[in-house]
């Protein structure tokens, strides 16, 4: 089927036997600077030749799509308890789609650049590199060029994915040849707009009984998040700052903010 034989992953150490194929390797996005992105591709369990392609990016910025997405969340395997093997994820999303995970931008996971200044990056350069990545990845997997493409991710992928989607749309608008066949965008717990997402944290603490009425109301009444810009401290009153400090202290270190009812892993 024209897939790159050199990227075929025959079997991962300690991996249970499976019926689908996996590929992994590098795609050079800038030969001059030596910038290269690492990918991991998993075929769908059934009928991979007709299933769509889904790209998944994790958040951060700068966190691993392969470590987080593929091997912890929605990929076909989880690490075993001793860290020396893999166990099957029976609810892997490759039951519904072919899956593509990319370490992006360069500097994440095994993606790298030979030019130090490439590690000074941001949303714009990440999206442009991802466009180059996809065009070159399709050269490795030409069969997918016409396949339905879904763009997905979580957290800071709320930035990565929409900006990447718009870069692809711009490409489509200017291309007389190949066009990306984007069929959907799905993002989970996405950072979309900081001045709304930040106060939501304290509303969540308050509405879930994690902070008192007094502190919750103080934050909601005394803090103005509309002009919030990270990393500058926003123009807040002493009452607001004190309430936020107290809220964070009450929630404490024994609560995992990413999953507030999760037990601590000692």
């Amino acid at each position, binding site marked *: 089927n024209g897939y790159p034989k050199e990227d075929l992953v025959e079997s991962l150490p300690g991996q249970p036997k499976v019926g689908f194929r996996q590929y992994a390797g590098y795609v050079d996005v800038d030969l001059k600077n030596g910038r290269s992105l*690492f990918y991991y591709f998993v075929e769908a369990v059934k009928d991979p030749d007709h299933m769509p392609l889904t790209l998944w990016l994790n958040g951060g910025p700068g966190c691993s799509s392969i470590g987080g997405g593929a091997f912890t969340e929605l990929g076909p395997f989880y690490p075993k308890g001793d860290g020396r093997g893999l166990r099957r994820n029976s609810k892997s999303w490759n039951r519904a789609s072919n899956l593509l995970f990319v370490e992006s931008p360069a500097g994440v996971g095994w993606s790298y650049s030979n030019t130090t200044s490439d590690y000074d990056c941001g949303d714009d350069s990440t999206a442009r590199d991802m466009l180059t990545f996809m065009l070159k990845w399709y050269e490795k997997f030409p069969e997918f060029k016409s396949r339905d493409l879904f763009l997905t991710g*979580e957290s800071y992928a709320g930035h990565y994915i929409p900006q990447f989607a718009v870069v692809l749309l711009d490409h489509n608008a200017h291309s007389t040849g190949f066009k990306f066949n984007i069929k959907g965008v799905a993002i989970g717990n996405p950072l979309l707009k900081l001045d709304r997402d930040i106060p939501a944290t304290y509303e969540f603490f308050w509405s879930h009984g994690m902070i008192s009425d007094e502190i919750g109301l103080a934050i909601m009444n005394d803090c103005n998040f509309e002009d919030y810009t990270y990393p500058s401290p926003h123009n807040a009153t002493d009452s607001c700052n004190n309430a936020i400090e107290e809220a964070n202290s009450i929630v404490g270190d024994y609560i995992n*903010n990413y999953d507030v009812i999760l037990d601590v892993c000692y």
Partner: protein
Amino acid sequence: CMSYERRFYFNLPEVQKALHANRTKLPYSWSMCSNVLNYSNDDGNINMLPLLKRIIQNHIPVWIFSGDQDSVVPLLGSRTLVRELAHDLHFNVTVPYGAWFHKHQVGGWVTEYGNILTFATVRGAAHMVPYAQPSRALHLFSSFVRNRRLPNT
């Protein structure tokens, strides 16, 4: 505790070899989040709603989903932002806010605007939705790629 197991596994030389990874022998070990990036702090402030609007105007369905146990980017903010986006696009509610079901249990709550913009929660899920609720997450994803609504019965 999977983060410890994952870090151990990915730093095994035989795993990197099997994955054709680390071909340049990087001077640091694999870690979940990068220690070498100098990512622009300012970019976190960019408002994504205009971009989502443009994506939708290109007739591409957008789903925003939220694990309801996450306090870092909680559903309370995402839900409001999706509603504001729908308002900006002059969309009507096409699926009124209500529960969706998975295996005879409530999988979460969902609403849809303009037949193209969906907001859904995943009950009992955290920031990493597919990790915390694998079965419900797969149901949501399957519905998304098949362009089907989440079941309300």
